[in-house]
């Protein structure tokens, strides 16, 4: 990829990419380097996986290889879509992308939980009013931070049980209400803080691109999933929650946190953090991601489902990929905002 036009200075094309805050280009040099490195590595990993799958007598376990290849393909799709969203001028493309992802994740979550007829109207408002409204508010920028951070907890969450109560069905009332509220919190509220990262401004001392910060967050979250899997496999002894997930172990978590810290430190240059601050942020992301992954596994176990992808044939299972991101996003956003911007 020829970086010369990007490094030389803004031409008429790049002028469109100027972020509204502080005139920083959305695709500045560190961001482009990170994107190219990640996309390049994924392309290599995809090619390697593809070639290995063609070899019938290789020494690699075919089930592991198939799962690895699937994961690499999902990541490739994620990174390519994010890159496409970044290239489109303005930030609304990324926000819309996450809005659609949130809608789909909500769909999977709600399909999984049993609902009664009394929930129907409340669900309609959740899908077609609350979800788009949240992402529209995020898209309006950092002046609307107050609105999009309280809209769901203060207005939507009480509205849902009230509307269900109005429908008149009291059977398992609290259970049904709680399920829908949990769905909105995980799939809409938490996820909306990922595109909200794009709009952070008033930095104490940083001139970088928030698109790079967003991509950093996604990369660390996905890497922490892989580290957890690998370390569980290598040194896992004591299982964290036997009933829920037979593979997640405390030793695996330790390895995960250590490796995530290293990965965070290695990528500090695309963020407003120092390298040790970045390491700590990565540890926080990995920890929240672990919690998120365990929570979604618990929900799946409760409903007797192995993967959200198998819920309905042919659908990709968005929630399976997004569980770490959804849980880690609000904490990451708030820490970054409180510690690194002037609020």
């Amino acid at each position, binding site marked *: 990829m020829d970086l010369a036009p990007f490094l030389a200075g803004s031409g008429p094309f790049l002028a469109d990419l100027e972020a509204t805050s502080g005139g920083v280009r959305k695709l500045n040099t560190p961001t482009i380097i990170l994107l190219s490195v990640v996309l390049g590595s994924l392309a290599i990993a995809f090619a390697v996986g593809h070639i290995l799958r063609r070899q019938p007598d290789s020494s690699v376990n075919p089930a592991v290889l198939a799962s690895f290849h699937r994961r690499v393909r999902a990541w490739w799709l994620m990174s390519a879509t994010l890159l496409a969203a970044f290239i489109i001028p303005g930030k609304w493309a990324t926000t819309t992308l996450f809005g659609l992802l949130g*809608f789909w994740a909500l*769909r*999977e979550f*709600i*399909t999984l939980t049993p*609902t009664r*007829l009394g929930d*129907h*109207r409340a*669900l*309609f408002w959740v*899908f077609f009013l609350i979800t788009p409204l949240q992402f529209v508010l995020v898209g309006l920028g950092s002046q609307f931070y107050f609105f999009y951070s309280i809209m769901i907890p203060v207005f939507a969450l009480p509205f849902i049980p009230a509307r269900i109560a109005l429908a008149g069905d009291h059977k398992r009332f609290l259970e049904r209400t709680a399920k829908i509220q949990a769905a909105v919190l995980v799939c809409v509220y938490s996820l909306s803080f990922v595109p909200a990262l794009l709009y952070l401004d008033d930095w104490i001392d940083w001139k970088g691109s928030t698109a790079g910060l967003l991509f950093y967050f996604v990369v660390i979250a996905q890497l922490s999933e892989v580290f957890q899997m690998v370390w569980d496999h290598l040194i896992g002894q004591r299982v964290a929650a036997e009933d829920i997930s037979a593979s997640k172990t405390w030793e695996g978590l330790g390895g995960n946190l250590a490796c995530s810290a290293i990965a965070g430190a290695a990528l500090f240059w695309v963020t407003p953090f120092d390298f040790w601050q970045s390491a700590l942020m990565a540890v926080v992301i990995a920890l929240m991601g672990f919690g998120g992954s365990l929570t979604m596994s618990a929900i799946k176990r409760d409903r007797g489902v192995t993967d959200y992808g198998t*819920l*309905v*044939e*042919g*659908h990709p299972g968005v929630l399976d990929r997004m569980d770490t991101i959804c849980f880690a996003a609000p904490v990451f956003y708030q820490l970054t905002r409180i510690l690194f911007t002037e609020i």
Partner: protein
Amino acid sequence: MDIPLRLPQAEERPRPRFNLLAPGLATLARILSGASAKWIDCQPDTCQRVYFANHTSHVDALVIWALLPREVRLITRAVAAKDYWTKGPLRRAVARSFNTLLIDRTKIKVHRSPVDQMIREIGQTYSLIVFPEGTRNSSGEIQPFKSGLYYLAKKRPDLELIPVYMENFNRVLPRGEFLPVPFLSCAKFGPPLWFERKERKEDFSRRAREALIKLKGM
């Protein structure tokens, strides 16, 4: 997958030439209901079939039709009630664009029964989508089948009977609601059944119903 294309002769095909309404409505229904098709021990084919499904919502026939591959869609006709679908120009246009087979529910004549009409209209090419429960069912139970499927299969024992289980569609647009909630729903197409010689109506209906119930768990 190579599905042989078996188009009916021009005189058997009364549908308007440029048909945007049917594919457009079908796509909308598919998107709104997040519907997907699951073929279990069965492949899509253009041979003459009768798809029988549980009736759970307004959009059932529409979605089954939309989920079929293009070659199969061209020769598949849903069976619908004439008195409902001829009221008003919009309904007539929709029924015409989907090439539905309209059955007169109000005037049943013995020598010109609905089953005979169906057999005459499908000829040697078309397939049908029928709902043997007879009415929309908002509870989870599949109600006992009416006799139309039995007589259809008895008069044409060569027809493949494909059970189609509609899952979650009743949650998208339940009875009495007009606002949709976009659940992910699934239509499960199961292995074909055939009419067995000298089979009684009760045994046949029970066998067909059990095939449908079995799909629910897969």
